[in-house]
């Protein structure tokens, strides 16, 4: 049954357009057994469409979809050993909690005792013991979410697709559900394919993150790889806060930006190649002026609880620094960056599309956090 390399699902060269608009542009993706994979990207990046193609609800225009080594392009959803947790839960309002969960099992003509045992153990797993007779319309959002998860998992699918399942929950519940989902995934050993636009969610839950933009996969990697070694300016900007500046690599292990040459750990670029450089705000150290690599004037300081968010104007480029050191707006400060904190990236179509932090505000942050509904 299993591929030699443990691949469960493989997308090969998959493309999809709606009304002439390209949604997916030649996607290649491998998903292994027992993996928690997250498709992460802004609205319209094609992540939901990718999920729907795997689920069988959308047909790819081009390319192949393999499941356990077999091509499944023409297999209808009800014959795929895959189940989905939908964004708005999509519970059946005419059935109670028990019957919602039993729905898939009844279609398989399972005996009543078998169904009862399975539903009971599912209810226990999602912490909804004693909810059998409740009407699903009378449940809270979090409870409905649990029923939706139980309804999908009770069928023991090889893969569970989750389409922004936590987007309708409030922040606290979301955090709890993230942990719970991760727990359930570990315990059941089922492959989870999770779609979200929330990078924090993606980083904290996944074994593997697939960052998507404009219908293409930008980067695939572990959360740590994605965060520490973004492949281009888009990934660097989308995942966490980052200062992205243009630089030059005069030779290996040296990069010049903001008028200063820095030691770095990157190599393999052409001599004097133009590059994008990422430095995370928390990786910048504030140092006395005589030890400074760069100096600049503080333009704003925001208290964030466990750190200060400091905007510094260095040569008319506004850098963001996260530090526990107290500084004041108007101060001239010095900064230093360690070689391993500098990530050098190849130039891409996304170079120069992300400016500095001069126009930074929470409102701008909201705008890059798109509405959950992606496409229909």
């Amino acid at each position: 049954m299993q591929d030699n390399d443990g691949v469960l699902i493989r997308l090969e060269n998959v493309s999809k357009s709606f009304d002439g608009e390209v949604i997916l542009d030649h996607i290649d993706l491998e998903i292994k057994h027992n993996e928690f994979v997250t498709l992460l990207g802004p609205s319209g990046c094609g992540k939901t469409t990718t999920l729907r193609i795997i689920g069988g609800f959308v047909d790819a225009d081009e390319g192949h979809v393999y499941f356990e080594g077999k091509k499944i392009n023409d297999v209808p959803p009800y014959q795929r050993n895959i189940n989905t947790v939908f964004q708005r839960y999509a519970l059946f309002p005419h059935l109670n909690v028990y019957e919602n969960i039993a729905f898939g099992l009844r279609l398989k003509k399972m005996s009543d005792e078998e169904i009862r045992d399975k539903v009971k153990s599912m209810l226990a797993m999602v912490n909804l013991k004693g909810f059998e007779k409740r009407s699903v319309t009378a449940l809270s959002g979090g409870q409905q979410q649990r029923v939706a998860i139980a309804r999908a998992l009770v069928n023991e699918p090889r893969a569970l697709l989750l389409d922004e399942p936590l987007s309708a929950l409030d922040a606290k519940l979301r955090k709890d559900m993230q942990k719970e989902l991760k727990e359930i995934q570990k315990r059941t050993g089922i492959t989870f394919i999770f779609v979200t636009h929330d990078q924090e969610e993606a980083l904290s839950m996944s074994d593997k993150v697939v960052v998507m933009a404009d219908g293409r996969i930008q980067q695939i990697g572990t959360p740590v790889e994605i965060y520490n070694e973004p492949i281009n300016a888009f990934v660097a900007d989308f995942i966490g806060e980052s200062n992205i500046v243009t630089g030059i690599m005069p030779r290996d292990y040296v990069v010049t930006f903001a008028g200063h040459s820095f030691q770095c750990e990157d190599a393999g670029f052409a001599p004097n190649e133009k590059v994008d450089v990422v430095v995370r705000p928390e990786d910048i150290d504030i140092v006395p002026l005589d030890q400074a690599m760069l100096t600049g004037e503080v333009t704003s300081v925001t208290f964030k609880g466990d750190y200060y968010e400091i905007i510094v104007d260095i040569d008319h480029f506004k850098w963001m620094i996260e530090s526990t050191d107290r500084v004041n707006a108007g101060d001239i400060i010095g900064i230093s960056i360690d070689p391993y904190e500098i990530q050098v990236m190849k130039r891409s179509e996304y170079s120069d599309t992300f400016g500095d932090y001069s126009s930074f505000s929470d409102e701008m942050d909201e705008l890059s956090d798109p509405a959950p509904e992606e496409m229909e």
Partner: protein
Amino acid sequence: MKRRSLLQRFAAAPHIAWSVLFIIIPLLFIIYYTFTDASGGFTLENLSTIASPEYLMIFLRSVMFSILATVICLLIGYPLAYRIASMKPRTQRIAIVLVMLPMWLNFLIRTYCLKILLNDQGIINTFLGNFGIEPLKLLNTSGAVIFAMVYNYLPYMILPIYTVISKMDQNLLTAAADLGCNRFQTLTKVVLPLSFSGIMSGVTMVFVPSISTFYISDAMGGRTFSLIGDTIERQFKEADNYNVGSALSLVLMILIIISMSIMNKYSDDDGGVVV
């Protein structure tokens, strides 16, 4: 308690006045006539008159005809409503207008047209005659009456069912497919139970006018048999017997109330859908 504005308090006044004048008072008259004789004295004779086998037969026939018409409407209307709801929005609008089109035509004219169609010298028989087929007896049959009921009331079955299905959350259908339903199972296990309220309003809206109709049985049945509607009409207009007529009306009304409450018992909490 929230205070109600003047407008809220009196918004229902016109309707209440209307109801009292044209529904409650006539109803009281019917009850009065039912329990009195021609001279105005109290009697139960009117009720015992209509308890005769002759009238029971008429009631039974009326119920049978309207149940048949309702079932046929449901069998034709449901698949059509389901099909329309799955069309593109633009096509849907056109299809719904087509369904409603006959309703824009006067009811009497519609029925009269049917009469012409089914006549011994009508279009159908003339057409068949071209092939040397003897004229079929289409008009003045119970089939013609039921056909006319279906023809006249079918839109009232289609519209509420269509409304419910078209408003259904498409994700539920996707979820059904995801959990292993093929198209047919999705229909029987999700769409059908969720459109129950629409079916119930459709059934009510076909059954009630069918059981009380008088013109249809008159025109299409040719007085070869009576339904409850035209029996009542004749009591008032021809026999001039308001008392028996009222008694028949009262019994019919009770019959309708009973059947409606049975239907409501099985329909959703949120009740039927009004078009």
